[in-house]
């Protein structure tokens, strides 16, 4: 076992993937608590599909992928949040339209430009080799931003998540916090999707929060437990991926599912 671990850490790409991945998982878990509680669980999924479309277009046009994907996904995040607020089109419907639309566009572009090859596969299901040095740096910066955002505005974020109307009435500018959530989520999704895959990145956002909510009853404990769960499931998933040669994203999600079922079972037993 230890031998395997030592071997795992001897590959620079694995170390990069681990560092960037753990940091991104932490960010996703923190943002995820707010998103899940605000009933925006599907937004990560929608955004990752938009990200997929944007990456496909960027690579077809030979542009820097992140430079295209990040602004496009941020824009999509704003639109999705705004649409769910205005109520003309329900948020879930808007998310469905965005995600399938962008996925279709992405598939069209990829198949027209390079033909259906392994590129598409790695976009959709992620690749452990995808993390470059620059991604690691970006992930570090992003996680510092997300962590300080959470620490500094913890109480306000709680108020905005728990009861937006009350928060607005007591003079909290809820729009700013919602926008921050949207922007940071968009960046997490874009950075994480190349490793986790467009189809699976949203699991980093929803699973830690949902699993923690089975077990814990206060906001603070849910937040702390989400962060720990995110790191644990990421590391376990990576080990499985390395040992059995399975895709990293899928391995992590499988660990997430197992943890969720264990916690759901524990909470069910406790209530009986």
């Amino acid at each position: 076992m230890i031998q395997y671990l030592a071997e795992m850490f001897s590959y620079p790409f694995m170390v990069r993937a681990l560092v960037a991945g753990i940091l991104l998982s932490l960010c996703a878990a923190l943002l995820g608590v707010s998103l899940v509680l605000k009933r925006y669980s599907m937004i990560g999924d929608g955004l990752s599909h938009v990200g997929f479309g944007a990456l496909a277009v960027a690579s077809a046009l030979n542009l820097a992928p992140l430079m295209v994907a990040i602004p496009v996904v941020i824009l999509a995040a704003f639109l999705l949040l705004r649409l769910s607020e205005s109520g003309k089109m329900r948020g879930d419907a808007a998310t469905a339209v965005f995600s399938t639309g962008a996925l279709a566009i992405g598939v069209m572009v990829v198949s027209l430009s390079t033909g259906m090859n392994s590129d598409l596969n790695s976009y959709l299901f992620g690749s452990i080799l995808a993390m470059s040095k620059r991604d690691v740096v970006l992930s570090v910066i992003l996680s510092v931003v997300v962590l300080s955002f959470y620490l500094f505005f913890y109480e306000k974020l709680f108020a905005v998540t728990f009861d937006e109307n009350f928060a607005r009435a007591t003079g909290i500018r809820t729009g700013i916090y919602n926008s921050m959530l949207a922007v940071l989520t968009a960046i997490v999704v874009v950075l994480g999707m190349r490793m986790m895959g467009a189809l699976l990145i949203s699991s980093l956002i929803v699973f830690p929060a949902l699993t923690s909510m089975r077990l814990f009853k206060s906001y603070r404990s849910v937040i702390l437990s989400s962060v720990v769960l995110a790191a644990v499931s990421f590391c376990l998933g990576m080990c499985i991926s390395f040992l059995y040669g399975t895709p990293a994203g899928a391995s992590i999600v499988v660990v997430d599912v197992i943890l969720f079922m264990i916690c759901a079972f524990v909470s069910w037993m406790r209530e009986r």
Partner: protein
Amino acid sequence: MFCLKCDHVSFSYENQVVVSDLSFTVEEGDYLCIIGENGTGKSTLMKGMLGLKKPSSGKIILGEEIRPSEIGYVPQQTPAQKDFPASVWEVVLSGCLNSRGIRPGFGALEKRLAWEKLQLLGITDLKEKSFRDLSGGQKQRVLLARSLCAAKKLILLDEPTTGLDPVATEEFYHLLLNLNKKYQITVIMISHAIREAFAHADHIMYLSQDSYFYGTTEEYLDSEAGRRFFRRCSV
């Protein structure tokens, strides 16, 4: 001294007028119930009082000593709160945010304030409980405690007894009456519990599609509109 004054206030959504030309004054220490059918703009009017929605014409003026962020507000519960993992203490403390400004965290002052409100409403034993595990009446007490943390003199409640059983409803109205009489807190409440509203409130605002009534409860019960409304309710 007046606490809140509406001066020819109207509200509209996308050119559709929902509330038109209201003028009334709420004095300090009043207990006002706003009643009326659905779609007559009760919630809109309340949002206006809170400064969350701008009137399309007219003015809403707050009393001298009240700042907009110092109005206590008990909104309708949202579906998201059903399974929200938060302790009662976290919820009540979040009412103190308006006095913190940009500073993160809560100080001893806020914690004492929150504790006082728990004591005032007799829910200190719920402090560590999870909000989602409480009964409907307990939840409303917690939300009331939170609003009192934010409020100095005025609280606004939007149908606080929806979904409560008759006993819990009666208790909640009593609690409000106590706050109103003993601590001189002005109460403005949208209500569906007509009987309790008439029994406890000293002023009634009745909104209908095309007109409104504002006056004391006795005046309302004596008025033509009041008699008609009451007859309909008691049938």
